[in-house]
């Protein structure tokens, strides 16, 4: 192989040890217009080796091959397992983003376990991404680039079984059993009917609005 550009790309990707943006890689080579083709060539070259070239989002990196997971457990640094709740919450956000907390709760049929969202955010897999224009302007949550990278996805459209879920109507943000909570609310209303009106002491302590 005599292509100097390929050698340069390999060396940089190898030495950096972290995903690199295609645009930054371009800067390093001569035939800048060839960048995609060259990267593709390298990818093919390593296809069946112990190291693979992977693209996630717009970034490229060398990683150990997927099928060697069992042989490489010595390198494993993941210490804690995600809870089932956190994992379900993460998947719902991934497929339904951007989504509000109460929409997530509606799907799971349970109030968000404490720590779920902040925990996922601490790991760096989700982020707030704007607010929904409904009363209360609740925060919308989305996944991050790090999520895409960590789960080895090319992009969000690469999420497994997405079409299937869509076809089944499970990606509609339909409040399925809003009816249940409606009922619960009705009960509340009936109970407090005996002219004991509730004080409207809502606890809104909205810091941003105060400032």
């Amino acid at each position, binding site marked *: 192989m005599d292509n100097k550009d390929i050698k340069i790309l390999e*060396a*940089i*990707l*190898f*030495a*950096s*040890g972290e995903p690199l943006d295609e645009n930054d890689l371009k800067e390093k080579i001569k035939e800048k217009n060839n960048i995609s083709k060259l990267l593709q060539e390298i990818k093919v070259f390593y296809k069946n080796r112990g*190291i693979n070239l992977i693209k996630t989002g717009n970034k490229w*990196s*060398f*990683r*150990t*091959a*997927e099928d060697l*997971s069992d042989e*490489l457990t010595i*390198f*494993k640094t*993941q210490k804690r397992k*995600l809870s*089932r*709740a956190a*994992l*379900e919450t*993460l*998947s*719902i956000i991934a*497929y339904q983003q951007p989504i509000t907390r109460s929409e997530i709760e509606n*799907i*799971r*049929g*349970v*109030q968000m*376990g404490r720590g779920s969202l*902040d925990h996922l*955010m*601490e790991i760096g897999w989700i*982020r*707030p991404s704007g607010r929904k224009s409904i009363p209360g302007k609740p925060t919308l949550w989305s996944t991050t680039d790090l999520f895409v990278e*960590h*789960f*080895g996805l090319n992009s969000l459209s690469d*999420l*497994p079984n997405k079409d299937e*879920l869509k076809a*089944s*109507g*499970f990606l509609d943000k*339909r409040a*399925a*059993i809003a*009816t*249940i909570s409606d*009922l*619960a609310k009705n009960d509340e209303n009936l109970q407090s*009917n*005996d002219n*004991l*009106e509730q*004080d409207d002491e809502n606890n809104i302590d909205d810091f941003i609005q105060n400032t």
Partner: protein
Amino acid sequence: MLNVSDTEIKEGQFNLLLGNFEGPIDLLLVLARSQKVDLSDISISELADQYINFINQYRNIHIEIAADYLVMAAWLTYLKSRLLLPKEEKIDEYTADELEEALKYQLQRLEAFQNISKIIYSRPLVNRDVFYGGSSEGLKVKYNINYTSNLYDLLKSYSQILKSNEQVKQLTIEYSELYSVDQAVKRLKGIFGNITEWTNFLNVIPNLIKANKTINKSIISSNFVASLELSKNGFIDLKQDESFGNIYIKFNQYGQ
């Protein structure tokens, strides 16, 4: 993964069991799977029975059950009764069929996402299954400092400030004018003789001090709790003819 078998329920670990579920719908889903048919074919009426039995058995062993489980039990009872009725006029804004459909949808959707979350987590994860590596030895390296503090750090930091500013420096417990259950029990015992006929519960409680709603509420609720206590001990009888209807109270002359 979660297996609710009879043996599990009979053995002592039962009281830990509810903690295995992520809420009522999750429990329902596990029960539904035990019917071993496609979720769209499950019998909602049977499912309602299963759920209510489960909750009742659970309650025998472990008194505290989160309110949302109880709300679900009540809702299922309601749904079941609606399903049993002949298909008649619309009582509510939803027909029984619509409610049944909504429940099935909710179950199927949750199942779909539970499966997805397993699929996603079984993907090759960085630092669990696949690894970055390499060494920059042999190449010239220049470093730029990159501050990695992220939004999480920022919010955590701000939350710490909010928390520490909220910390109570000195706690003073103020005298409460709320009406206590003890007071109510004493008072009700004092007027037993007068309540020989069914009397509206609201008429036996002291005049409400209209100025303060909170105190009014406390009077009503402590009298209600007191009357439950007294009826449990056999001093009085209580009845309510319909849901949310008036509550009636009567002295039980055969009581202690």
